[in-house]
């Protein structure tokens, strides 16, 4: 690959994350970036420092941001890849509209506290950034594109969410400390308490015209179940949740990610017992899950099976009355909110929309790290004024 050297960082190469033509960094852009650009370096076990350059990104999908954190953690922790991040920002000489777009993009990362997520990788986040951006998360300029006060703007849903600190990325573990807590029911409980006590339902009711009881279900139910679901993925040390808005599609986005065992892996024994070999009830007869051997279609079936009522990784008596979390999330996202659910796990992406009972669309989404991503997109009323959102 013929890549530019960075003049002030020895033995380094810059690789660019390519957003869509409009500057949007979607999950698919992350997939392309990691698979076609980063992976070759990761496999080559190079001593080179990669400058992962995101300076072309104007608009972020919050799910891609969270999944990027899990990916970066993997490349540092499991692969030992040396890298630095270059994040977008407005620069002298840019067209005013571009300058604003990149400043907005930078402000987004600051307001959503991307640095909190990066704490999972390094306690000193500055050490993950190129030298020119050491002050990136504590700029002298205010975050004027995503203000949390001083503006009379009760019409903006985004403004309300920002001012109530509901958008920032939340860690479900505590990576800041030596001796950090792993993801625990307690840390999830703290997060649930915050979201439920902040009455997001009132905001959605008043600003989106969503009926009160339905609006309350967003935080009282969808968000809570999505958070609780992280506990079903063993070996997770990272758990992240965030809410955002997509102005172009007029959707409220909730995303939860973890780096635990993948859903197909956890559900495989149950799937095998129930569907492949119902006559063989003993667990010892169930072959172990082989990530490499199973085709995407099979993994999609297993993952889809996990969203059915009563399907849980637990077996026997322990499983009774359980296995409803993903079912409720799927049904309410698609049926109650008329939204879309995306589950990204173990190399595939399942998309549910327009009727939960229908088989989801499945596509390959190769990734070398373990983990799971839920992306819930809820449509909001078209009359909303989303003037702060791209």
């Amino acid at each position, binding site marked *: 690959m013929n890549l530019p050297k960075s003049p002030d960082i020895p033995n380094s190469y810059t690789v660019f994350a390519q957003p869509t033509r409009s500057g949007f960094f979607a999950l698919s852009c992350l997939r392309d970036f990691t698979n076609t650009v980063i992976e070759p370096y990761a496999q080559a076990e190079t001593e080179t420092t990669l400058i992962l350059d995101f300076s072309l990104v104007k608009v972020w999908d919050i799910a891609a941001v969270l999944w990027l954190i899990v990916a970066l953690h993997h490349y540092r922790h499991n692969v030992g890849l040396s890298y630095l991040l270059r994040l977008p920002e407005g620069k002298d000489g840019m067209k005013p509209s571009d300058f604003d777009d990149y400043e907005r993009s930078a402000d987004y990362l600051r307001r959503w506290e991307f640095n909190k997520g990066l704490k999972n990788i390094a*306690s000193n986040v500055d050490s993950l950034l190129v030298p020119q951006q050491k002050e990136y998360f504590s700029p002298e300029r205010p975050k004027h594109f995503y203000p949390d*006060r*001083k503006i*009379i703007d*009760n019409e903006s849903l985004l403004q*309300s969410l920002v*001012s*109530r*600190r509901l958008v920032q990325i939340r860690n479900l573990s*505590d990576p*800041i*400390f*030596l*001796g*950090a807590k792993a993801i625990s*029911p*307690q840390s*999830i*409980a703290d997060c*649930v*308490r915050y979201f*439920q*006590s*902040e*009455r997001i339902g*009132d*905001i959605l*009711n*008043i600003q989106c015209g969503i009926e*009160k*009881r339905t609006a*309350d*279900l967003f935080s*009282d*139910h969808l968000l*809570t*179940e999505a958070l*609780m679901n992280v*506990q079903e993925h063993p070996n997770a040390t990272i758990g992240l949740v965030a809410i955002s808005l997509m102005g172009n599609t007029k959707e409220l986005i909730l995303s939860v990610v973890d780096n635990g065992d993948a859903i197909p892996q956890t559900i495989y024994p149950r799937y095998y017992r129930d569907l492949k070999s119902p006559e063989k009830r003993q667990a010892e007869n169930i072959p172990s899950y082989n990530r490499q051997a199973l085709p995407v279609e099979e993994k999609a079936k297993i993952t889809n099976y996990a969203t059915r*009522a009563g399907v849980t990784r637990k077996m026997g008596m322990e499983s009774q*009355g*359980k296995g*409803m*979390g993903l*079912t*409720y999330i799927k049904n*309410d996202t698609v049926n109650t909110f008329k939204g879309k659910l995306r589950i990204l796990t173990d190399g595939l992406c399942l998309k549910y929309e327009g009727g939960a009972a229908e088989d989801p669309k499945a596509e390959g989404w190769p990734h070398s790290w373990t983990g799971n991503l839920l992306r819930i997109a809820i449509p909001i009323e078209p009359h909303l004024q989303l003037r702060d959102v791209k």
Partner: protein
Amino acid sequence: MAKKKTQKPVIIVDVAVEDYKKLSEFGFVHISDHSWAKESRNNNGFLLLLKKCDVNVQGQERIHEVVISVTRPVDNLESYFEYFATELQRDASKILAKTSEPPIFILNLMPFYLSITRMDRILKALFLGKLNIRDGLILLMVRNLDWVLKSSVFQDICTQQKLPLSFFVVDLRCYAKRFHKNQFSDFEIPQGTFQYLLDINKTRIYNSLVFGTNSHIGHYELANSHVRTHYDLREFIARDNVWEYLHKFFLSLVDEAETVLFIGTGIERDVIIRVGYQLQTLFGQRYVVTFEYLPPLTAAENIDTTLSRQNDAVIVFTDIVNSGNTLQPLVQKLVANNSEHKPIHIFTIAKMRNSPSEIEGIKLNAGLTIKRDYYTKRPDSCKLCQLGQPPVKVKEAEDFRQVLPGQLTPYDFWEIVTDSQALLRKQKDPQGRFFSFRIDTHRVVRRYGHWLRNVIAQRFAETWPNTRPEVICTVEEETGLTFASLVSEAIDVNKIVSIPRRDLRRVTPGGGLPQNTKNPFDGVSRVLLADDGINFGNTMSNLIMFCRAAGINPMGAIVLDSRLDQRATDGIRVQMSRSPLVALYEWPTRSSHL
């Protein structure tokens, strides 16, 4: 033999507060206050609630309270509620043995933020298990009734006809559903019903703000005044009883108006907007409600007076009023544009003792009056300026949350000691040593624990960045444990190891741990010592020695106050291989003088 006819029993069933921690291990989330706990509510309100549900109650019913704690070990939520159901069955049987009347059960789950999967497990244990209360009526109280109605287990229970004869579910938002003889109907109970159930006594609400809410103490310079304290209204207004208390005020101000403009203004923007939204949601079904938030310093410039003229009434509300000067221009403009003499009201969540009773001739309605004064901006009239207390310029609510490097200042320390009545004179300590002056830590923590937590968290973060102890170690005495608990809450470390005094006395540098003493630090590498105060340093020295005998070098120590001079402090630090010793307050006098 037929049982004697007696009063209809109403059995109120609660989960014991001491079980909340156990339940939280299963992802069961409780609210952060005790609004719904047995001792903080009015049980007659339950009868009113039943009436609002059209249940035939006469007011003569006998109310029984059953608070259930599951003492046996459980490893999941289902097991907990299975045992809960068993305990409930046993307690209910005792009550029902004395009556032939069908019972009314009220199961209070209001203190919990649940989810549908959590509700599945509760309902399964209660209705598909051993509990047999089919003859009575059950009223289930939850924060969101859709957790019940959307539960697949609940749908199974309905299909299997395992619900009691009459079943009601009511939620905090006043939505309700009735199931009776396989028929069901939706209804709503009147807004404000919970006012009669929760304790909205003014003194209780006041104590809840001043002593039960996270607070900050300092010298805060606001635009028009100087103040000493700030309370975290964000946490305060999220409490159910506080909201009912405020709701009552707002309801009285709205009175007969059909269209109301609420203008929220104040430095606690998040709080104001939250209240505004809640009012819109609450009153929106009965009145036409408009809500505007205006930043305090430019509110008068930005108010749209056509909006105020279009409504039957205007209610200006704010977080805290000190001098009233910030509100004055806004109110003045509203009054000047009120040619039709429509009602204009002002409401503040709290005001100070010396705040004005009216602004521009309009009564200042206050939820609470804080028993403190505000000071004017003139340095000669501000006691805090005169005493040289380090000032914080407040431009936004976040500025209140700072702990300055100089805190606790002597004024901070002695004010909290005096206000808590915690200065003990001429008394012995638990070790029998006589002191001219001693501090009652328990009293200080009871009154000012919230603020001290902030100070501890700040000092801890400065002294030990990016690390956290696995264990907090203290002496097994009430004073030490009180402070250690506060430290554990401040830095979020759950494990406290307390060492009995007799073990501390027996530990020697050359002898390892005392005989018959187990090492409490097995598998632990980071221990933080905590004690309420250091007088001569003996207890702290012994705690360090105990840790070292157990193979641990403490990462440091934190105490509320220290009477040691620099040399003695260094001596303690040397024992810990120069690890830090943090005292929130250092007495200026040597211990031998006290």
